[in-house]
């Protein structure tokens, strides 16, 4: 008769290697190439903005959990760090640090903790912070420093929008735009969004590590390409090309890193595809016919609000409900 104490628990008795912290860590690794490009383009300022934003987000979360909720702090899951990096990536590199602090408090405090913290927030916290700053401090949020290799301090999207509005034909606008240089990050914009290539490298990492599936990014960008393509084919001198739209603004950053946020995206693949089509459409409608040059943040936030509905009515494909082939 053995007297050794044994653990009793229901099956399964093994667990996969995946946990929240590892997945958040993978997202941070995937964001690294874009951060490197950003430092190359804007200098150490880009790094300082990112580090400061992370610090503010982590501090805000810690303060709320510790002193307002009087519960355990759960910074170990790295989610506040991811929010911090993503918020910074959506800001100009020369933004005053005070505004970053405000953005972080809004992002974490209002965007996340008000709803109960990680997993409960309906809207992407980093985007809540960004859109708050954009509306409250429009000038600071749309004045970009000159990036290395960029032609002007305005973003290509803004330049194109202004020019097309005054009737300048696309061919003339394109004389000042080099798409290849743009994809590498030689353009103006929020600090993390400038290099589509660096962001796509991160996308590959997320796919390899199975953090996200391809559906949302590919469908968002595909929908954008389709809509901008139709516009471009019908009036090539009035609308910029699909490639320009995919490489400019927050298209890739939004599609790969913001729209795929677990908490605020649908639980089923079918739901995710509908959500992604919605984001692509709204983004393009804002870009082509709206008042703002960029619509990615608004599109994601609007579609975030549809997620509960998608989760309620769109159910996964079940086993054993198809008619078997007899």
């Amino acid at each position: 008769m053995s007297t050794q104490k044994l653990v009793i628990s229901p099956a399964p008795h093994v667990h996969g290697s995946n946990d929240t912290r590892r997945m958040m860590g993978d997202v941070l690794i995937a964001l690294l190439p874009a951060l490197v490009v950003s430092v190359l383009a804007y200098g150490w300022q880009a790094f300082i903005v990112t580090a400061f934003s992370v610090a503010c987000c982590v501090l805000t979360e810690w303060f709320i959990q510790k002193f307002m909720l009087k519960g355990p702090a759960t910074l170990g899951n790295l989610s506040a760090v991811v929010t911090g990096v993503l918020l910074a990536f959506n800001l100009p590199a020369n933004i005053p640090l005070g505004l970053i602090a405000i953005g972080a408090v809004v992002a974490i405090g209002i965007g996340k903790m008000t709803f109960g913290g990680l997993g409960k927030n309906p809207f992407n916290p980093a985007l809540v912070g960004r859109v708050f700053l954009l509306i409250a401090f429009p000038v600071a949020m749309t004045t970009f420093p000159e990036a290395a290799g960029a032609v002007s301090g305005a973003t290509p999207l803004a330049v194109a929008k202004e020019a097309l509005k005054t009737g300048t034909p696309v061919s003339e606008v394109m004389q000042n735009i080099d798409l290849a240089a743009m994809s590498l990050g030689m353009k103006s914009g929020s600090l993390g969004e400038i290099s589509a290539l660096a962001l796509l490298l991160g996308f590959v990492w997320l796919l390899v590590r199975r953090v996200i599936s391809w559906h949302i990014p590919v469908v968002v960008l595909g929908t954008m390409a389709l809509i901008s393509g139709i516009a471009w084919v019908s009036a090539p001198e009035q609308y910029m090309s699909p490639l320009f739209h995919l490489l400019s603004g927050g298209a890739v950053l939004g599609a790969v890193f913001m729209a795929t946020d677990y908490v605020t995206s649908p639980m089923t693949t079918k739901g995710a595809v509908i959500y992604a089509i919605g984001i692509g459409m709204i983004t393009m409608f804002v870009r082509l016919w709206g008042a703002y040059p960029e619509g990615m943040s608004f599109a994601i936030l609007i579609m975030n609000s549809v997620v509960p509905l998608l989760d309620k009515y769109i159910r996964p494909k079940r086993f054993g409900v198809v008619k078997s082939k007899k």
Partner: protein
Amino acid sequence: MKTFPIGGIHPSDNKQYSKGAAIERFPLPKVVVIPLAQHIGAPAVACVAKGDKVLAGQVIGTAGGFVSSNIHSSVSGTVTAVDAKADAQGLMKPCVTIAVEGDEWVEGVDLSDTLIKNINLEAKDIVAKVTEMGIVGMGGATFPTHVKLSVPPGKKAECLIINAVECEPYLTADYRVMLEKGEELLVGARILAKAIGVDKIYIGVENNKPDAIAALKKLAATYVEIEVVPLKMRYPQGGEKQLIAAVTGRQVPSGGLPIDVGAVVQNVGTALAVYEAVMKNKPLVERVVTVTGSTLASPKNLLVRVGTPMSELIEYCGGLEGVGKVVAGGPMMGRAVSNIDAPVTKGTSGVLLIPTAESLRQKPDTCIRCAKCVEACPMGLEPYLLSKMSKKEMYDECESHNIADCIECGCCTFSCPAYLPLLDWLRIGKGEVMKRMRARAAAKK
């Protein structure tokens, strides 16, 4: 390569510990404790009393109904008790205790290794033999085999599928049987096919066992009706519904049975037991058990008499040093053992020892809605949602979200990055919903 259509996971198979160990006959224990309920359904009724002399292979418990099974003595000796003993989970169950004396068998049992291939019995005689010899499903569910072989009126079996998947990590008992008893296995499969009147036999094997696939293919070359089907490794391919879908492409309808799509599934161990029962007149009194784990000095595949205490097997393979948890069966669906002196039964496919460091669950975190559980569920359910509904006792919602379809494979809990005990809640919800469904069905009658 074929596999099932939805969900699934890829746990490390960890079969390296015991896959190289040839089946070894475990020495006779001094005392065996044979439970009268080793199967799903009604327990058998003891037909021996304290003081009786019994022979190996002698009936000591007769089936307590149609969905029940005969129980035979696995040893010769003297009955020392017919009473309740603690099972592996510590619950008191009726058992027959026998002090072992020598190894004498009842008359007519052929213990030789001579292969007999010619099947002379008719279908109904095969079923009668299987019933008499107390054969049950040996993959773990222990459903009485004769019930599965009795195709209900109005249904027609079209194929027999031999479940040679052994998708549970660590376990290698079926694998060793395929390598060492391949001929017997194939004859057993042909007997089963004859019993249900089909002339198509599939043997589904996962591609992490290439040598078993090759060996069976070679042996099966002489039988036109047998097809060995290699399957892409993925858990829970050994689930009955998943295996049928992987092999035939047909999905058992929700709430239905395999026979609804013309399939009857039997496990490797069962096919071997059927061969021995029909051809050798030998009742189900011993089975191959994998005793494995990273802490063991010598993991083994042992041929063990039913009723042998698990603790003796563990001792034989290296003992409990560094072990924090003992599991009867595999790590995905096996049950944790609180009483290691409980006996090996017809359904014990393995005894798995888990090191202390891996025994305790991680502290659950909060759901981050990553949808990994939805992705992993092979039945296409939403475990994150069902677990919340079950927790809040929203059983009507659980039912309308098809919790009754859950096969309790554990893919959801395995994949959850927040270490949430999803399946625990699903089991509770499913139990409650099934109870309600049964009550409704009874009220209708």
